[in-house]
């Protein structure tokens, strides 16, 4: 099943590249729906325990000790669902756009999906790294070929920045590989043991080598400088992929490939990492408040949110990690909806400057309503999906340290400031010359946005099924961690 989830999108993308069918969009959408159905089958077959299921382990490159080892546990499953859910929505959201070379465009999106599912299911260190890097290539070309102004320079910065991070992670992984006993192995359990056996200073070094890669990908302050430009310049589907799914690779990495590997390093430097994440929250929120460009504002808001997720996950409290899981899902859905709304507004008014907008509520009440719900999700109002996650995260931070918790709590207030300001500037007020004749949501747009709205409310009201999926795996992870740190003390 796991192999199907990984290889099917690849196969689909190759078919698109090779045959360039006439209505590519429909084919790509169909492929992503099949993938979604497959992932639902996985959810149904999945038994709620901490075990890794649907494991496949085939030697691939023996000379390098590389195994094609993949499997799904609760933590992976939520992110796989997020990927398989968002990709069809992203493809559907692009139905109106006419891109040059559509078969390449959709082929790259599907290839990206392959790599993302691979990242979330890999059980072999080198395989994880391979998928991690392969995910970068399609998104780079999506941004480079279909992006906006000055994309050459901006996407290159993005590429080199993230590649730099991942190469350091590679050094860390290779170093661990040579610490494994016998004929070395990249197997995740072997790497866990090798990492834990290291002395505290060495674990700290490995911690930083690996953490930097994840921090750049998320991105947390001060590794975020590539992000606002890239989000702004990317075509909207690219931005959705970047912020909706790709960003989660970093947090997933922290949970799966950092905390259990170098627990002592995390103990030593966890607080530092939490503090910089929290600085990032406040910093990005403040910058978001003064943004004039709609898309850029959401880009900064995304830095703020991801900072909270990373801080919460690094508290190593069950609440924090669970909160991170649910918030990743929720943020993915919400940020997708926000970027789609921006795209709708941009397409009709040809501007993203907030000061040029206004009064959309009067002419497009449906859009405004959807925007309100999504926005409330983004500011974590109770009964929206954002609330569940942020509540757990902030709660865990309070348990960790009250002061940090209260600073992190600012995210909700600051978030409300910039989101409400955005709403006020774009939706309320009088209709002006740009927003005159603004059409309300078309049927097709409803088809994309309504499920998202339903999901936001559904997860907000009844998050238990999702929490249950990841709970045993998270509990197991933290138990291993606390056992280990207890034994060291």
């Amino acid at each position, binding site marked *: 099943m796991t192999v199907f989830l990984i290889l099917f999108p690849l196969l689909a993308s190759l078919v698109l590249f090779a045959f360039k069918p006439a209505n590519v969009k429909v084919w790509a959408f169909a492929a992503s729906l099949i993938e979604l159905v497959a992932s639902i089958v996985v959810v149904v077959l999945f038994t709620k325990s901490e075990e890794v299921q649907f494991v496949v382990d085939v030697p691939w*490159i023996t000379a390098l000790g590389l195994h094609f080892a993949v499997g799904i546990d609760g933590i992976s499953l939520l992110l796989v669902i997020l990927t398989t859910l968002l990709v069809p929505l992203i493809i559907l959201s692009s139905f109106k756009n006419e891109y040059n070379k559509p078969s390449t465009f959709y082929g790259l999106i599907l290839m990206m999906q392959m790599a993302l599912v691979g990242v979330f299911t890999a059980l072999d260190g080198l395989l994880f790294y391979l998928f991690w890097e392969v995910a970068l290539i399609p998104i780079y070309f999506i941004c480079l070929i279909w992006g906006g102004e000055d994309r050459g320079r901006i996407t290159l910065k993005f*590429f080199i920045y993230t*590649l*730099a991070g991942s190469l350091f992670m590679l050094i860390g992984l290779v170093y661990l590989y*040579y610490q494994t006993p016998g004929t070395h192995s990249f197997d995740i359990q072997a790497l866990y043991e090798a990492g834990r056996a290291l002395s505290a200073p060495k674990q700290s070094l490995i911690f930083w080598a690996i953490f930097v890669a994840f921090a750049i990908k998320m991105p947390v302050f001060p590794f975020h400088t590539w992000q606002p430009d890239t989000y702004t310049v990317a075509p909207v589907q690219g931005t959705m992929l970047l912020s909706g799914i790709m960003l989660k690779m970093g947090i997933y990495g922290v949970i799966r490939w950092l905390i259990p590997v170098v627990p002592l390093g995390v103990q030593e430097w966890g607080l530092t990492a939490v503090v910089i994440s929290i600085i990032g929250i406040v910093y990005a929120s403040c910058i978001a408040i003064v943004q004039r460009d709609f898309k850029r504002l959401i880009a900064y808001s995304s830095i703020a949110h991801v900072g909270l997720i990373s801080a919460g996950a690094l508290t190593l409290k069950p609440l924090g990690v669970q909160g991170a899981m649910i918030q990743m899902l929720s943020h993915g859905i919400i940020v997708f909806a926000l970027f789609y709304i921006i795209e709708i507004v941009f397409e009709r008014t040809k501007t993203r400057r907030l000061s040029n907008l206004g009064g959309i509520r009067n002419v497009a009440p449906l859009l405004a309503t959807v925007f309100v719900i999504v926005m409330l999700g983004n500011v974590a109002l109770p009964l929206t999906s954002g609330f569940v996650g942020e509540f757990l995260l902030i709660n865990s931070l309070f348990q960790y340290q009250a002061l940090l918790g209260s600073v992190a709590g600012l995210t909700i207030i600051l978030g409300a400031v910039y989101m409400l300001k955005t709403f006020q500037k774009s939706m309320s007020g009088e209709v002006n010359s740009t927003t005159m004749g603004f059409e309300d949501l078309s049927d097709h747009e409803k088809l994309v946005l309504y499920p998202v709205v339903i999901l936001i409310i559904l997860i907000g009201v009844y998050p238990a099924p999702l929490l249950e999926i990841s709970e045993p795996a998270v509990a197991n992870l933290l138990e291993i961690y606390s056992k280990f740190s207890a034994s060291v003390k």
Partner: protein
Amino acid sequence: MNALLVICGLGVFSLIAEIANFKKWLMAIVMAGLAGAVVLVVLDFGTSTLHFSDMLLFNNFSLAFTGLIIITTIFWFWMANDYFKLQPHKTDRSALVLFTVAGAVIMASFNNMAMLFLGIEILSISLYVLAGSRKESLFSTEAAFKYFLMGSFATGFLLMGMTLTYGATGSFHITKIAEYVSAHGGELPGFFYAGVLLMLAGLAFKISAVPFHFWAPDVYEGSPTVITAFMSTVVKIAAIAAFYRIFSFCFSSVHTTWITPLQIIIVLTLVVANITAVYQNSVKRMLAYSSIGHVGYILLAFMSNDSGSAGTIFYYLSAYSVASITAFTALHVLESNNQNITIEYFNGLLKKNPLLAVGMTIALLSLAGIPPLPGFFGKYMVFALAIENGYTGLVILAIFTSLIGVYYYFRILIAIYFKEPLGEELAISTSLKLLIFLLIIFSIVIGIFPDSLINIIR
């Protein structure tokens, strides 16, 4: 061994073809002959034979490198086909190329210092002529002259080094030298070590490692593009193979002598070549610096005393050759008559010729070391080998230089995908299309299934 005879035979045949005015079928015969040579190499595989009173040793190492050299040459002939068509004297040129290949094979299989010298000279002298083969061009003549002067200089170093080692060990046979050196560890005279270092310098000239690289950019730029492609693939493979046989095999027991200078060479090569490449406008010159940079990565593998390093080097060179041939094919197609290709020539290549654009993209991604292309696994293995042997500092430096590499390779990618095209659509012949297609498939296959290539030398 038989492959070497076939290649020499083909060279002589080419010369006769000039006199006998038999040009029409020459290319086909050369290609068929080379393909036959590959078959002979494959048949010999697994054996280990000595020839000419133990002067040449054909074991798996030399056979693997011979195979790589010949296959690369086949691709090269395929790509350079029209270079031969346009020239009035194509036969003597193909003869020169074939003699160069013969020299290269000897460099990969020598078992005696004299044979090494012979191999290098056979290779170099033909190349001096080829570098100057565009007689009407001043640059080409300059390249030939520079190459000749610098090459002779390097050969001088090498000869001096051989003489000194001979004086200390009393033999030219590298197996005997290796035995003698390991048996008389502490009691070797000082001039022996001087000899080792002189040979290091001489061979560093040949593989164009910094600070012995000055000739390379000018020569690469001035020579006809197809010859540059030949120099940066076939010649480089042979030079690295020779370097391996001398240092990792013959002088491995005194590696403390040469490891520190080699480290300095690696650092300089990585830093200077990659940083200079950023500032090049001419793509050919940039590729010249990039090929110097790749030598730096390959040399990292020499830091380990482990037997696995031969496989790593072999794989790296295969990956590098496939990518380089692809990139030079693109360059060759684009340049038509103009010799100075700047990055602007690649503008909008995606629209002008998608196949060429995809080929170039894969080549550049592979050179930049992006998975799952072969360039990544090559770099990965080199880095892993260095980390295993405790040279993490060098690896961190190499990572920074690879990032610089990404910068200059991606400038071409940006031009291909982002800039508006200049000029008309680009038509290329079916045979070149097929070549590019094959090279793309090759890159992907050896990227996804690298195992057999890595293990070939064991």
